[in-house]
């Protein structure tokens, strides 16, 4: 009953499209533990654009970004404690560790601060988590593959950074979907670390020992490297699932122009940081019924729309999507069903 009420309240809000505007005196801080790769840079840029606009529109009083000098847990824990002292009303965090920051996060919650984590999430129950459904992304890769290769055949899987929850989730999705599509068979698996160079080397090493491959399922940041490895070995080009990187989409475009090459691309948008920002703002706005675990869709491109997105992605960058407050409300609503 409560849920239905909350849903309808949200629906009304969504329809009117305006904020309650009583967060204009609130301050939101962003605690980030690393800025050293294109994805993180893109994440910071998206956040900055949306947060600056929110401050200019007087939706919030301040939205400051704090990046620590290293990837260390204690540094970020100290940073969170300082943000508590600084008097912020909410902290958006991309955390260095899912568990080891819980002490500091709990202190923040106890001080009445709203904590929203994303990408690098925290397990402390009082915090909010914005999670991308990586398992579903793994599943969709195989389902898309079934469209391009209806006859089925042998697949090569490229995995991400070992020991991370993201690699685990995507792999799980792929494995489940392959079980449901008996026409496909994974005949090889390599570790690409979400990095084109690593992926290219790994694929080049395993390639001579493999039977003919019809498709490659991967995790993003590795598709272009795989394509290079196949080209260097002089093997026929398989259907390679892409991961929204600029070099991957550029290669896809070249192949499409040459002979109508078809594939699909999906990955987490660095702009998910802006969704976390809006979640923090909405919680401060009094939406106490927002679920603490929010699952958001990944960003994907198909044969028809990837070329339109390509010019907006900086060289060496990743396709992003910046959320508006209305987008955020819609994403939250999807999680309350």
């Amino acid at each position: 009953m409560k849920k239905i009420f909350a849903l309808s309240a949200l629906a009304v809000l969504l329809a009117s499209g305006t904020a309650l505007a009583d967060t204009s005196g609130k301050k939101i801080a962003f605690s980030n533990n690393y800025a050293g790769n294109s994805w993180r840079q893109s994440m910071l840029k998206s956040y900055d654009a949306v947060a600056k606009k929110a401050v200019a529109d007087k939706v919030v009083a301040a939205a400051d970004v704090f990046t620590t000098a290293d990837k260390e847990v204690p540094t970020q824990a100290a940073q969170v404690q300082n943000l508590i002292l600084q008097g912020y009303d909410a902290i958006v965090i991309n955390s260095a560790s899912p568990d080891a920051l819980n002490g500091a996060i709990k202190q923040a919650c106890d001080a009445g601060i709203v904590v929203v984590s994303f990408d690098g999430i925290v397990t402390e129950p009082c915090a909010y988590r914005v999670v991308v459904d990586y398992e579903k992304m793994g599943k969709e890769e195989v389902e898309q593959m079934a469209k391009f290769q209806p006859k089925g055949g042998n697949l090569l899987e490229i995995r991400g950074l070992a020991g991370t929850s993201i690699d685990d989730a995507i792999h799980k999705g792929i494995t489940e979907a392959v079980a449901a599509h008996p026409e496909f068979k994974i005949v090889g698996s390599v570790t690409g670390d979400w990095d084109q160079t690593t992926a290219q080397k790994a694929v080049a090493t395993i390639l001579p020992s493999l039977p003919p491959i019809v498709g490659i399922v991967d995790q993003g940041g590795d598709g272009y490297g795989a394509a290079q490895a196949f080209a260097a070995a002089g093997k026929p080009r398989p259907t390679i699932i892409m991961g929204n990187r600029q070099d991957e989409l550029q290669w896809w475009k070249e192949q499409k122009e040459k002979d109508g090459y078809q594939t699909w691309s999906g990955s987490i948008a660095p702009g998910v940081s802006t969704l976390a920002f809006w979640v923090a703002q909405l919680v401060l706005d009094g939406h106490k019924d927002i679920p603490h675990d929010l699952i958001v869709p990944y960003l994907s491109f198909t044969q028809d729309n990837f070329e339109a997105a390509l010019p907006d992605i900086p060289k060496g960058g990743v396709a992003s999507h910046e959320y508006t407050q209305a987008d955020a409300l819609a994403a939250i609503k999807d999680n309350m069903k």
Partner: protein
Amino acid sequence: MAALLPAGAPSRSGRETARRTRLLRALLPALSLAIVLGAIAWLNPRAISYFGFSLMLNLAIPIALATISQMFVIAGNELDLSIGTFVGFVGCVTATWLHDAPLLGAAVLLGSIAVYALLGALIHLRNLPSIVVTLGMSFVWQGLAILILPKPGGKAPDWLLAVTGFKPPFVPFPIVAALVIAAIVHFGLMRTSYGAVLRGSGGNPAAIARAGWSLLRTKMVLFGLAGLFGVLSGMTLIGITTSADANIGNGYTLLAIAGVILGGGEFMGGRVSPVGAVIGALTLALAASPLLTFMRIPPDWQVAANGAILIVVLAARVLISRREA
């Protein structure tokens, strides 16, 4: 100044100057701490409160303990590059074995202190450079930490949480802890006769050996004490964070060395100051994080600003030493 005076017959004013610079040197760590605290008070008055000090300084306590650990090694003219990963290793043991099987956990931690003492023996007997040995050990500790805790997690024992969560009346816990640590180590190293021998083993090993003291034993004691304080550092850190990560202590190696130097210690000659080291660690912890956060530097510059603050703080220390020499 002092060099201009005739050797062996320092004038009254020369002695006066020497005394004054020595005083300045002893006061410098306290002075830099006061400046950093002043800056924080000016930027964010809210931080200067019981709650504020508890939050800002509680992560400085493990740093102070790691700095004391490094200080023992430096007192013996050696350098320990493994203290950071050792703290991480202790953290992983604390959050897993010490929580699930206290006896096993305690045995492992005691054993690791013994390993430290044996490293001291190895370095002394084979006359090996400590930098090489401890750099090697840093990978061993890191590897063991990852083996114990392949992905972040674990839980601090409840009694440890109670200790680190202790709220004494009027004075915040981190300040009480810093005072206690400084007092105990100061008494042990500066006021006891064996403490003088330990410092002497770094200052003038030949004289200590001629006086009949075993240099092997002093080195083992110094490294053993370093291991003990490393263990205390790792345990306190886990008490504060409540959960562990194999990489949790990696940044401590350089912080600990900087803390010793900032606190008035020297790399050579057994010249160290426990009180200075604790103050140095607190200063670094405050300068690196709260000060930086309160200054509201644009994100692109924050990483560089962190380094700049450390350089400024350490440069002040070097200027004073230069005047003394």
